C-alpha cells in the first residue's frame, strides 16, 4: 500500500506576492536570487506541530491590558479558517498582532511620534473551532508612516499568523479594512499581482458579527493550502 502523503496543491499563479518586489525596499537585500527547489512532499511537510490551548494559552480580548481599558474604537473580528477544498481547519492556531488606535506598536523599535497606550499591548491568540470559526475583540488600529518612500503610510491592518494541519500550511499575512484609501498606495498590499487575491485580504463589515450596544464586527476568512487531489498516474 502506498502511504506517501499527498502533495500540497501548487500555488495559483499571481495569487501570492513575489520575494523580489522592487517597490518594497526591504526586499532588495533579503530576497534569494535563486528559485527555491521544489521537493516532493514527505512526512516532514505533511505533519505539523499540534498547537493547543493547553500549551499555548488563548487570549481573545485585546481591549484590556495592565488593569485598564484601551483607548479607541472597539471592534470584533470573526471568520473561518478553511482549506482550498473549502473544509474547515479545526484547531488552527491564529496569532494576531497590531498597532494601537493611534498607529503605534507596543514595541521598543517603533519610533513613530504617536501616543503609546499603557492599556493596549496588541497581541492575541485564538483557536479555530470544529467548524473553523475564530473570533477576537480588539481596538481598530491606526494607520502609521513608514520610510519605504516619500510620505509612505501603511493602510490600517492586523497581522495574522496561522498554523494549520500541515507544516506546508504555515503562513503569515495581514488583514486590511474596507474602504481604506491607503490600500491603493501600499506597495506591500499591491505586490500581490492578482486583484481578486488582494481583495481577499480586505475584511468586510458584517452586521451579524456586530454586537448590539458593544462593537462593530468584521468578517475575515482565511484559506490555507489544500492537498492536490490529482491522482498519481499509474502505469
Amino acid at each position, binding site marked *: 500500500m*502506498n502511504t*506517501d502523503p499527498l502533495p500540497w*496543491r501548487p500555488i*495559483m499563479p499571481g*495569487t*501570492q*506576492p*513575489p*520575494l523580489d518586489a522592487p517597490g*518594497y525596499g*526591504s*526586499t532588495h*537585500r*533579503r*530576497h*534569494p*536570487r*535563486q*528559485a*527555491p*527547489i*521544489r*521537493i516532493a*512532499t*514527505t*512526512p*516532514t*511537510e505533511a*505533519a*505539523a*506541530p499540534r498547537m493547543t490551548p493547553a*500549551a499555548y494559552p488563548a487570549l481573545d480580548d485585546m481591549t484590556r491590558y495592565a488593569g485598564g481599558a484601551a483607548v479607541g474604537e472597539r471592534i470584533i473580528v470573526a471568520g473561518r479558517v478553511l482549506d*482550498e*477544498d*473549502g473544509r474547515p481547519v479545526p484547531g488552527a492556531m491564529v496569532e494576531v*498582532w*497590531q*498597532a494601537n488606535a493611534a498607529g503605534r*506598536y507596543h*514595541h521598543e*523599535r*517603533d519610533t513613530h511620534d504617536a501616543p503609546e497606550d499603557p492599556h493596549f*499591548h*496588541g*497581541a492575541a491568540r485564538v483557536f479555530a473551532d470544529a467548524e473553523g470559526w475564530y473570533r477576537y475583540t480588539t481596538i481598530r488600529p491606526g494607520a502609521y508612516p513608514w520610510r519605504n518612500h516619500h510620505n509612505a503610510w501603511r493602510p490600517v491592518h492586523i*497581522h495574522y499568523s496561522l498554523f494549520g494541519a500541515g*507544516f*506546508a500550511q*504555515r*503562513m*503569515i*499575512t495581514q488583514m486590511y479594512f474596507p474602504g481604506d484609501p491607503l490600500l491603493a498606495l501600499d506597495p*506591500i*498590499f499591491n505586490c500581490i499581482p492578482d486583484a481578486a*487575491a*488582494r481583495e*481577499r*485580504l480586505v475584511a468586510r463589515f458584517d452586521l451579524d458579527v456586530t454586537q448590539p450596544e458593544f462593537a462593530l464586527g468584521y468578517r475575515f476568512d482565511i*484559506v490555507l493550502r*489544500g492537498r492536490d487531489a490529482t491522482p498519481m498516474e499509474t502505469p
Partner: protein
Amino acid sequence: MPIATASQTAGPFWHLIDVPAWADLLRADGPNAGFTGGDRIVLTGRITDGDGAPCPDMLVEIWQADPEGSYEGAFHGFGRCATDPDGRFRFVTVKPGPVRGRGNATQAPHVAITLFARGLLTHLTTRLYFAGEALNATDPVLATVPAARRGTLLAQPTGKGEWRLDIRLQGPEGEDGETVFLDV
C-alpha cells in the same frame, strides 16, 4: 474552490507574538516537560542579507521529528526564536532521528526551518542537516540539491552536542553561498 490566502510580510514588529522561552523545546514548563528521550542538542546560526549584514529582526521557526524519527510521538517538535541584533538564533532541542521518506526511502535526520521577516513577502523554508551523518549520502531531498550548494544545508559541529548553520538570504551573483531554500 477557494484559493489560498495571499501571504504578507511579518514586518518589523512581530515580536508582539514572540515568547523567548519557545526557543528552548526542553523548557521545564513547556509541552516537552518530562520528555527524557534522545540527545540534547543546541542549534545556532547567524542570518545575513545580500550585503552580508546581520538580519536582527527575523522570526525563525523549527519543526522536527522525535529521536525515533516520528512526528506522531510525544515529542513536540516546534520552536520559535527571534534573531538578536547580530542576526543570531539559538534553539535547544533533541536530535531528531531518521525520518521515513516517500516510498521506501529514508530521510537523514533533519530540522525544517521557516523564516519570516520584514522584507519577506512570503516565508522561506529550508532544512538543517547534520554534517557527517551517513544517511546524508542517500537523503532524497539533499539529492535534489546541486552538489555545490548542498553545504548550505549542513550544520557543522561547534562543540559537544552543538551545531551551527548560518543562513545567507541572498548570495553574491554567480556564487554558491546563498542558502538553498525549498518549495514545499
